[in-house]
């Protein structure tokens, strides 16, 4: 669709812009004094109204000869031909109009007196049409850049969506393989515990499976996921893991992105507890403060532990997810002290509307 014809507001603005052009044309026509000012105005205004629409046709010729992909000769020929055709059409219309006006008593002999004005009309016609071509090329360029921008934005959104989905569906393969190895070890010595661990692992996996599609879950649900995760890890690490929790009652039904905290607790186990011979403790704190949910995950760690591969990826993901979802309404901070590693998060309190 034509970018101006298709929008009433734009069309009105466009026609308004032609009023000074019509005045200018009237001035040019009246300058020679062969016709009167009133006659010049009476001719110029209807002519410009018609020509305003004729000039819109430049859009089609501009579209088929894009500036950057057409040869100079092609551009020159196309636009010169269309400009001449449009001008010829305009002159014919002018003639008809003048003949019609001559018939009236107000403009006697206008047809004769108008003859010397024809070259002016031809010159203006060509010039105006060329201007319209330039104007349409600008319009096309604007449209193209807007489209490109929209495409880039859409691609960005799609990429982020995909990343989040992948992130949410992810279960750390290390965790899975190590757990399976523990179960395998237990089968011959303690079949009941092996079975218990199978059930705990199954419970954890089932909980993570459904979460991929959900945008948010109550904090309480995330906590039961963390409990399922820790139950498995406690069989692996035994007394090396100590967990302390203090979650305010009013925080339990705050909506949080799923699998936001579990990776933090997993980090605390993998990068903290697993590197301590005697084990250590994880502290998880969640409170509502001034409309924000403040969460802290803190664990003991060995600052001199061997560097684990890929460390820090989990933290970066949590930071990105918070930023993508809440922008500057959420905060994320990491602090590594002598023996303590702490991640602090705040995010706006959102609750699901409960049916009264």
């Amino acid at each position, binding site marked *: 669709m034509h970018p101006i014809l298709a929008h009433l507001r734009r069309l009105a603005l466009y026609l308004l812009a032609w009023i000074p052009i019509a005045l200018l044309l009237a001035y040019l026509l009246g300058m020679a004094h062969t016709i009167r000012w009133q006659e010049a105005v009476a001719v110029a205004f209807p002519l410009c109204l018609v020509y305003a629409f004729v000039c819109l046709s430049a859009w089609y010729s501009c579209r088929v000869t894009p500036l950057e992909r057409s040869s100079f000769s092609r551009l020159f020929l196309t636009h010169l031909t269309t400009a001449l055709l449009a001008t010829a059409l305009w002159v014919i219309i002018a003639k008809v109009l003048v003949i019609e006006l001559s018939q009236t008593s107000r403009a006697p002999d206008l047809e004769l007196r108008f003859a010397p004005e024809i070259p002016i009309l031809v010159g203006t016609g060509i010039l105006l049409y060329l201007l319209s071509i330039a104007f349409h090329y600008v319009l096309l360029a604007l449209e193209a850049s807007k489209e490109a921008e929209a495409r880039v934005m859409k691609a960005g959104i799609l990429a982020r969506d995909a990343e989040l989905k992948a992130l949410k569906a992810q279960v750390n393969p290390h965790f899975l393989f*190590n757990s399976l190895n523990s*179960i395998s070890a237990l089968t011959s010595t303690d079949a009941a515990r092996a079975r218990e661990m199978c059930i705990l692992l199954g419970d954890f996996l089932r909980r993570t499976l459904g979460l991929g599609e959900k945008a948010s879950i109550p904090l309480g649900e995330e906590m039961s996921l963390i409990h399922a995760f820790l139950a498995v890890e406690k069989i692996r690490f035994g007394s090396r893991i100590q967990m302390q929790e203090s979650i305010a009652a009013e925080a339990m039904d705050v909506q949080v992105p799923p699998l936001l905290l579990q990776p933090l607790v997993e980090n605390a186990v993998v990068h903290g507890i697993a590197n301590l*011979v005697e084990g250590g403790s994880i502290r998880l704190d969640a409170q509502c403060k001034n409309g924000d949910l403040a969460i802290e995950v803190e664990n003991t760690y060995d600052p001199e532990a*061997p560097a684990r*591969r890929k460390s820090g990826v989990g933290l970066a993901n949590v930071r990105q997810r918070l930023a993508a979802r809440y922008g500057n309404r959420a905060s994320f901070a990491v602090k590594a002290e002598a023996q303590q590693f702490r991640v602090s998060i705040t995010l706006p309190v959102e609750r699901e509307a409960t049916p009264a």
Partner: protein
Amino acid sequence: MTSDAQKRIRVVIVDDEELARQILREYLSKHAEIEVAAECANGFEAVKTVAEKKPDLVFLDIQMPKLDGFEVLELIGNEAAVIFVTAYDSYAIRAFEVHAVDYLLKPISQERFEAALTRAKERVGGKPAPHALPVSELSAAARPPAQYADRIPVRDGTRVFIIPIAKLDYAEAQDDYVALASEGKKHLKQQTIASLEAALDPSRFLRIHRSYIVNLERVAKIEPYGKDSHVAVLSNGLQLPVSRAGYNRLKAYLDR
């Protein structure tokens, strides 16, 4: 078992998880010729135990407290055949395929375990593998690309020292060893200076001589020495020889 049944094979199991050690113990218990000499739950303990007990074979976990499996291997050298045991590590797998006796992935199957044990027995009974590389080369291969060492483990008898890279002043080649100077002490490590150079971040360490690598932060000034050679003066006053190629490299760095 067969005729080697006479020869007892002494094994050390290293893993920080009790259940992971338990399954190896169980698989090993089916072999009368195997004696589990010790079990360790961390890297320091592993190095100490291997030095004391001199086992033939070590089952070594990768992710452990204190020292990881690669660092342990770097320190115990060729003293024992090593089978790595890990859950999942693509870099490690690449390195084992080239260098180690074998590697086992958790969960470990009995069949796969037996195959690895058979290979290890061949190694223990015979000579070192024909393509055996110096251990330091092995650990370099296991390091992820574009990641430089942030610490260097060294061993003195049964004791292990960790030298953080920032505390390494310079390294000097001494035959098959490098002497690592840190905090006024020198630690000897069996490693070529070339492989040490490859492990160090080139923006922080520079090879200034055939036998010397220096920590650039420690260089106070460069002085001419004799007719056309130079010495690098460290901030603690020590002087290290600088070769002509080393001088050019050093100048290129300082002119930046």
